[in-house]
């Protein structure tokens, strides 16, 4: 992993066309960004801790674009406490310890899709073709005001079909050509 102290992991919300179609105008103009702070960084095999008082977590299998001289790509499970409102930054919902599972290996090819499984059952196919902003457009629109440094990672979006998982569920995120991410949800 190229992650070092000072690296930033940015996520983009509402970047699937189906999500934008459901919004009440005005639609977002700039990419809707959030940060995955360092306490959220996690690895395949480690537990995902369900906070007390929550019944389920959203599992958004996604693609992480690793910045550098050439772009490379990793599998990511971008976990959150489900939330409907996008008005205020979802810090309590997204910034829990271990909520961002980052794949340890990268590929130099953009995949067609990211597949998310719960207990072995395929629950979501997130297709790159369904992104509102494709990767080159995202990087252009973000770097207009925010420089993406080598080693920074950009998560391209959460499919609106991202499934929920409960305590005891095993979650797998799969991208062709990369090792799978597998994590179990445990009660905190």
């Amino acid at each position, binding site marked *: 992993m190229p992650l070092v102290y*000072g690296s930033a992991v940015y996520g983009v919300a509402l970047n699937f066309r189906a999500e934008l179609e459901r919004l009440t105008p005005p639609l977002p103009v*700039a990419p809707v*960004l959030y940060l995955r702070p360092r306490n959220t960084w996690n690895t395949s095999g480690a537990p995902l801790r369900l906070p007390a008082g929550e019944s389920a977590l959203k599992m958004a299998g996604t693609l992480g674009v690793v910045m550098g001289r050439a772009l490379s790509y990793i599998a990511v499970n971008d976990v959150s406490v489900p939330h409907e409102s996008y008005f205020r930054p979802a810090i309590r919902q997204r910034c829990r310890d271990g909520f961002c599972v980052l794949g340890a290996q990268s590929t130099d090819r953009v995949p067609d899709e990211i597949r998310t499984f719960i207990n072995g059952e395929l629950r979501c196919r997130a297709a790159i073709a369904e992104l509102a902003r494709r990767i080159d457009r995202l990087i252009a629109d973000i770097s207009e*005001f925010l420089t993406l440094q080598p080693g920074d990672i950009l998560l391209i979006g959460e499919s609106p079909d991202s499934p929920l998982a409960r305590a005891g569920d095993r979650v797998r995120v799969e991208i062709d050509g990369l090792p799978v991410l597998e994590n179990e949800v445990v009660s905190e």
Partner: protein
Amino acid sequence: MKSARVAYAGAIHSASDHNGRLRLSDGRQVGEGDVVWLPPVQPGTIFALGLNYADHAKELAFKAPAEPLVFLKGPQSLCGHRGQTLRPRGVTYMHYECELAVVIGKTARRVSKASAYDYVAGYTVANDYAIRDYLENYYRPNFRVKSRDRSTPIGPWLVDAADVPDPMNLPLRTLVNGRVTQQGSTRDMIFDIPSLIAYLSEFMTLSEGDIILTGTPEGLSGVNVGDEVITEIDGIGTLKNTIIGDSEEASNVG
């Protein structure tokens, strides 16, 4: 004690104050204008607070929030003392925000308000500029408003917590081209420093080097290219920044 991070003669140094001059870690003494001031800490996670002063919330026609309004900023948003911040062409309203910045000193998880100060390494001054033209109602305040490159001057010094007996009673102010435009006191925060550390550490782990910008009081006004903006907090520091335009940024790049 207070410490700075500076670049001098091709290297990065930590520095201390020596009768108004800087003493580098290798003992050399230099003038404050002879160095490039960097943010006084290498940042971990950078938190910022919206609407954390009752008067400011009222100024923006918002009810005081029931829960801290927290947002995050990227590490590229910081710049040091005597730095430059870009006001893009065509923007109609860019304003400063003078804020007390709290630097976390050790790992904090589920910390009580009563023990929260044990986790503070020290304090510095931040200017959390915003460009309101770009404000949108998606994860507001959105990154295009608040996490722009070099849009958050911070420094000059990290002042040890031990030297700040009452961080909740510090007068602060902003001066634009020498004229005072914002005045307040940290005593008017809605969520004080112990409350913020307790709130955040209840659901996430804080670590050494994390920074919390604690919000700004009323008195916002616009800044323009060429303005010299000073944000200062008594006992913590005086932070200077200059607003530049697109052409200057382009010429700096070369």
